[in-house]
Every structure is written in structure tokens, then in C-alpha cells.
């Protein structure tokens, strides 16, 4: 039986002048969703930062499949992380972590 709320995994690439911590990125994305879509919208997103490599600035964000357009818009709207100017780009989206690594290996 398929899950009612399926998950989507987004590979994010952060461009920032200063070194970043995972918590800062997570806060920035949560705040963006809250600001744009409110607490009700944020509660439907199911956001979770699965992992983040501070050296390369690449991370994996998880959300519910129904909230994918909302999360993409929120991620694109991030212009600052903490006090530093930043931009967050979505490199890839997949339904499972395995598919993500398969796509990454393919490219």
C-alpha cells in the first residue's frame, strides 16, 4: 500500500560568502516557508534537513510531495542565511535517497 503523503528529497546547493552551518540553512528555509505560507503551510511541508556538507555547501532537504512547489518557492526566495547574503539552488529532486544517488552517479 502506498503512503498517503509521499516524500521528496531535494538536493540543495548553497552559494554564500561565509561558511555555513546546517542549522543556519535549516532555519533559513523554515523561516522562508513560515513567512510565505504561514504556520498552516509550514505544518503541511514536512521539512527536514537530512544532511548538509558544510565544505561543499550541498545538502539534502526532505518534504512531502504535496508541498514540493511551496518548498521550491520558499527555497528560491532565500536571500540571506543569518547575516550573510546567500542563494539556494535546487539541483535535483527525487522520491528516494537511492534515486538521488543514482541520478548523481548518472550525471
Amino acid at each position: 500500500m502506498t503512503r498517503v503523503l509521499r516524500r521528496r528529497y531535494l538536493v540543495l546547493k548553497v552559494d554564500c560568502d561565509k561558511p555555513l552551518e546546517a542549522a543556519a540553512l535549516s532555519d533559513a528555509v523554515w523561516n522562508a516557508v513560515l513567512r510565505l505560507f504561514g504556520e498552516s503551510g509550514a505544518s503541511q511541508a514536512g521539512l527536514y534537513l537530512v544532511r548538509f556538507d558544510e565544505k561543499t555547501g550541498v545538502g539534502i532537504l526532505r518534504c512531502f510531495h504535496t508541498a514540493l512547489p511551496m518548498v521550491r518557492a520558499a527555497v528560491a526566495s532565500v536571500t540571506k542565511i543569518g547575516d550573510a547574503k546567500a542563494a539556494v539552488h535546487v539541483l535535483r529532486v527525487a522520491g528516494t535517497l537511492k534515486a538521488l544517488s543514482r541520478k548523481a552517479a548518472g550525471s
Partner: protein
Amino acid sequence: MKFTDLHLCAPSDNLEQAKRLFSKSAELGFSQIGVPLMPNVREETVDQLRQVSAEAGLDFVTRLDLAPRSSGDLLTGLRRFRRKFEVVSVLCNSKSVARQAAKDRRVDLLCFRSFDSNKRFFDRAEAELASASSAAFEVDLAWLLSSLESRSGVSVFSRLRREVATAGSFGVPLVISSGASEPLLLRKPKDCAALTLLFGLDESRAKDALSIDPGAIVERSRRKQSEDYVVPGVRVVDGRQG
């Protein structure tokens, strides 16, 4: 699919910064960029920028941003500079300028960048004029993102939602541009399309606004500026027989 960003604010006097912007734009997936230039820009500067953009794999489009104070100013500017640039946009700060720009076939893009709803003039009358003259309605994403920082996002999105719906009902093309002056303000085409969710644009229209519609504007302008163009629908064909 070929993505076009018609408003990439690269400095014409700083080639290094321009190179950074162009390579970031190409990296993110754009293949054609429009760079606003001063009316009195020299040919050498344009050639240098064109060369730098070609090295990044981008098709360079010259753009002029007019911000006239009156409709008379607009007509003067168009008469003097239209032939020199491939794309002309008009920043509509008053109703008379907005109406004149919408009526004029020489104008490609209509821009409204005020956060104040009373100073945005894209209503049904404006859309009707624009649809007859093939002018497009431009939305700058950098301006949109700055509205979020200044906390006027709610009124901006509300107004923009109505304007986009009005443009759609009159068949006015929509153009989404980055308006970026630094690499951190650039976004991938899919992320730009995602941002349009905030003012009610669906995915397919957003993709058209990033690819087909701006591309058509550039193509139309280049066709008009080609040597064999006479009037709409008439072209010189050198077909000597014998």
C-alpha cells in the same frame, strides 16, 4: 528548452564583474541574456560584452531601459534610440507614460516597479492597449525578492496576482526576468518558475514567460532590424533569375 533572462544588470564598465554574472547565468541554465545599457553606450563596449557573453556560451541581447517623466519624453527617447537596441523596456512611473508605452509598437516591455498599489497602472485598459501593440508585461524577480525583505510582500503579491490575471485574460505576454546585479540574486529557471507560485502563475505559463515569450520578443526585434525588413509581412528577397 532555451531559457532567456532579459534583464541581467551587468556593469558595462567592469568586465570582470560582467564575466562573473554571465558565467553564473550560463551555469544556472540560461542561454540568452538581455543586458541594459546606457543610451550613449559605445560600440566597442557592446562588442566587449558580446564577446564575454559568447565565451560563457550566451546569446547577448542589447537592452535599453527608459524611465521617462512624461509621454513626450518617452516618444523622444524612442525616436532617438529605438533602432540602436534590440529590446526596449519602459519603466512606467505615471499613468500617461504607461498608456503611451502600451500603445506604442516600439516598446517591448512594460515595467512597474513601485511597491505602492496607487502607482502601478497595469489595469484592464492598459492590458487592452498592450495586447494590440504586442508589448509584454515584465516581472523582475530581484525586485520581488526585495519586496519580501521590506515587508511589503503581501500587497505586492496581491497586486501582482491581479495584474498577471489581467494580462492573461487579454493575451498580453508575460516575461519573467532576474533583474540581478550580482550572482547571488540569480536563480535557476525552474526556481524562477517556482517563485511565480507566489502570485498565482501556473507552471506552464511560468516556463513560457522564461523561454518562449522573451525569445519571441528578441526574434521579432532582430527581424525588424535586419537589412531585408521593410514593413510587417514584407521582406526583401534577392531572387534574381537567369
